[in-house]
């Protein structure tokens, strides 16, 4: 009976060492804190109706940002722990972590950063920006969109669940290679958490990708042919096409590994005729394209940023699109470069090495289009552009080190050394993360209705770039010296320690940068009066997302624009063409179906982790019932009448103070500095202590 309802869960599965107790307590404390605030401000209803059940891609995008930002901090704490370990665990000292715990941390770190930070931010940006860029009011399937988001959240919860139940995460590395991840070598629940966290969020990604493909191909504003589509939209389209092409592979691979572990099948086991090498192939057939699924939207962001801040159309739009297409196609056919050393013949290695080298050609084409765009442009060095310049520098280092690794003979030396780790961090941080930061600072005024504080943004940028170089240049050197990745202990005679110390210091500088970014957002909220953007177009933008108000109304556009050229909005501004014919708008209704299904999907995964078959069956039945009900409901939209649209618009325009209707020049008032911010916070705190009215707020 106990087995039936609880499976393998026992009191022993509850937290009992300090890390798990601490983690669990932190989660409970955060939850209680949020709950208290929501109850005291009577905001539960608001949270549920306005946010959690919303199908508005803009709100879903913001929720993606929040979860991903939170996970960035969570993954960042992992890094500091790992680097501290590497600084301390020399000779006799064992450092602060046990070897097993260290392995779990780097695994969790990799999974969190790729699946829940990078993917989260990228999906958030695509959600928010793509419908605006193509002049659409919504996505093709608002339901799939909330479902995809909540499945992503389900994955986030699943990966953190081990703190509360079980106390161990996979100790296998982020791709959990077989047979190490099989039941014989990893008997605990860690790998099961890994499987279900990735499975749930991966299915969400596939659904999201299908939805964006439908949206981009079928819902563009009249006149916007494919050849007039903004480059970020193009990049998103390629990225989503790749996702659709490879995420099913991940789903299938995880499914097979689950069969091995749960039912004792022999797909990837060392015994029973299984083939562990097949796992390596399958996981990298997904894994390599995955890094480009993240990279392409970042390329798209940079194309928009470079063009806007150089005040020029992109140099050779066609070359840019073809470059992205080339990268996407080639990225599907290079997976073997991740395991040159695993026994393929030299012909096979040579082939995959060559294809990998060829990828740098379309990538270089993209770079040349950006550089040519800047050439003779009137460049403005606002933070989005700074992130771009940082990207160019670091991504070049990362790309070149990738080329080095693409030569099989060199790779035999460098494979699984810290050189490799430095390579992909140059690309993932310098490329994807900087792209995300550039995109967020570029579109922030659109999202929030006010600009970000420039000054603190610059400080944050410099911390990131200096911290990055301090952390990763020593890492390249260490790799060449022979330090392997995933090293939890070494001898001082290797001479590694000074480098690890510099790396840790670099990590601290990056942490300061991250803190400054949070400060930047808070400072901008405090200063929002002065940073307000009432034009909807703070950067003199070229594409349609700037044609609507900031933040955009929930129906995005009062009138769907007709697109004539690539820089649709720029032309509208030049020609002064703005229709003001209000019309009825169909708006999808909010729905909680996404949340319910994600909760049930989470329970299915949780049931499988702990062998609670009753929970699995009940949850599956629940999913079927909800699907059956929702799929056949014929009432998912309502009409917003033209008069109401007109009223809403009038209300919005009335809110804009008359003198602010003109564009404010960027320099008419100083931005708050970090020091101002600290002073502000201190005064604020003192006011609270002295129980005065919060006058400054």
């Amino acid at each position: 009976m106990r087995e039936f309802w609880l499976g393998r869960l026992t009191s022993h599965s509850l937290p009992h060492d300090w890390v798990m107790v601490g983690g669990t307590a932190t989660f409970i404390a955060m939850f209680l804190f949020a709950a208290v605030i929501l109850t005291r401000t009577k905001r539960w209803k608001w949270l549920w109706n306005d946010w959690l059940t919303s199908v508005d891609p803009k709100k879903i995008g913001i929720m993606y940002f929040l979860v991903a930002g939170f996970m960035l901090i969570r993954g960042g704490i992992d890094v500091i722990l790992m680097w501290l370990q590497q600084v301390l665990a020399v000779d006799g000292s064992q450092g602060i972590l046990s070897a097993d715990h260290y392995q779990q941390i780097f695994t969790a770190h990799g999974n969190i950063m790729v699946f829940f930070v990078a993917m989260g931010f990228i999906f958030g940006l695509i959600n928010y920006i793509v419908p605006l860029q193509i002049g659409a009011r919504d996505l093709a399937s608002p339901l799939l969109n909330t479902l995809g988001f909540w499945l992503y959240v389900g994955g986030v919860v699943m990966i953190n669940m081990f703190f509360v139940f079980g106390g161990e995460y996979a100790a296998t590395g982020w791709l959990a290679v077989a047979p190490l991840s099989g039941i014989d070598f990893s008997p605990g629940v860690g790998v099961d958490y890994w499987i279900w966290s990735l499975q749930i969020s991966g299915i969400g990604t596939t659904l999201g990708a299908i939805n964006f493909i439908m949206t981009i191909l079928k819902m563009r504003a009249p006149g916007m042919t494919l050849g007039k589509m903004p480059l970020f939209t193009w990049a998103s389209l390629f990225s989503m096409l790749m996702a659709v092409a490879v995420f099913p592979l991940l789903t299938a691979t995880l499914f097979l590994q689950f069969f091995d572990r749960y039912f004792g099948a022999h797909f990837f086991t060392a015994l029973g005729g299984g083939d562990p090498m097949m796992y390596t192939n399958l996981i990298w057939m997904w894994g390599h394209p995955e890094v480009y699924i993240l990279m392409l939207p970042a390329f798209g962001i940079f194309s928009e940023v470079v063009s806007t801040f150089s005040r020029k159309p992109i140099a050779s739009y066609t070359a840019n699109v073809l470059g992205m297409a080339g990268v996407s196609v080639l990225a599907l056919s290079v997976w073997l470069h991740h395991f040159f050393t695993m026994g393929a013949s030299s012909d096979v290695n040579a082939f995959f090495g060559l294809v990998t080298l060829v990828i740098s050609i379309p990538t270089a084409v993209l770079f040349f289009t950006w550089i040519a765009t800047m050439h003779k442009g009137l460049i403005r060095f606002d933070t989005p552009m700074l992130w771009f310049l940082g990207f160019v520098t670091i991504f070049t280092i990362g790309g070149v080190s990738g080329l080095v690794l693409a030569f099989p003979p060199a790779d035999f030396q460098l494979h699984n050394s810290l050189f490799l780790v430095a390579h992909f961090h140059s690309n993932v941080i310098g490329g994807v993360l900087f792209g995300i930061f550039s995109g967020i600072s570029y579109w922030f005024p659109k999202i929030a209705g006010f600009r970000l504080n420039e000054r603190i943004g610059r400080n944050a940028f410099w911390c990131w770039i200096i911290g990055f170089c301090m952390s990763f240049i020593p890492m390249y050197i260490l790799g060449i010296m022979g330090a392997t990745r995933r090293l939890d202990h070494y001898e001082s005679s290797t001479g590694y320690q000074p480098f690890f110390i510099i790396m840790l210091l670099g990590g601290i500088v990056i942490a300061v940068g991250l803190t400054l970014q949070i400060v930047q957002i808070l400072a901008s909220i405090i200063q929002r009066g002065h940073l307000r953007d009432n034009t909807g177009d703070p950067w003199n933008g070229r594409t349609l997302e700037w044609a609507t108000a900031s933040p955009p109304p929930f129906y995005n556009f009062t009138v769907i624009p007709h697109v004539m050229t690539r820089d649709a909005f720029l032309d509208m501004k030049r020609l002064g063409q703005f229709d003001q014919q209000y019309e009825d708008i169909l708006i999808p209704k909010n729905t909680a179906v996404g949340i319910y299904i994600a909760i049930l999907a989470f329970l299915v995964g949780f049931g499988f982790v702990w062998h609670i078959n009753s929970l699995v069956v009940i949850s599956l039945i629940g999913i079927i019932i909800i699907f059956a009900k929702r799929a056949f409901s014929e009432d998912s939209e309502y009409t917003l009448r033209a008069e109401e649209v007109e009223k809403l618009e009038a209300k919005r325009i009335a809110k804009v103070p008359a003198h602010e209707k003109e564009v404010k020049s960027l320099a008419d008032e100083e931005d708050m500095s970090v020091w101002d911010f600290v002073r502000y916070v201190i005064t604020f705190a003192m006011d609270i202590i002295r129980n005065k009215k919060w006058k400054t707020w």
Partner: protein
Amino acid sequence: MVNHKAHQAAADDRVMFGFWVYLMTDLLVFSVLFAVYAVLHGNTVGGDAGRDLFSLPLALQETILLLTSSFTCGLGLLAARSYKKWQTLICFGITFLLGALFLSLEMKEFTEFIREGQTLQLNAFLSSFFVLVGTHGLHITSGLLWMAITMAYILKRGLNAPLVRKLALLSLFWHFLDIVWIFIFTIVYLGAYS
């Protein structure tokens, strides 16, 4: 005024397109399973090979059942497009029965294997066989469930345009499963005897 008809037509077009994309992702899942079967089907570790286990007549029966069900499914969709309620229900009812029969034959095969001790734990060949054919069976099960629910709604609400659209998607799914089965029949069952 919103032009509801145009709006609906555009939405239908999108859903149909999205469903095709979904089917392609499903096809990719199956292609992984096929590839895995191709790699592992010889790894019997001394156990019986496909030739010793599979019964071709059974597989042929299953194939005929599924092909016929695809045919009746097509007829059902034609009837639905001209809003003939009972004809639609009868055609899909037959499809449902044929599908259920198919599924029961497959279950029979599986249970016999398991009773003889040929389980998926035994070796890699059987693992890949059970999972490939079983995944197809799971799809058939969900197709049947979908069909049953749709028919229940037709009985309740009568045959309206949204339900016809649902039927169009369902029959696309059904034909897709038919095609996958043809590959299973050829590669797994016929392949074992080649």
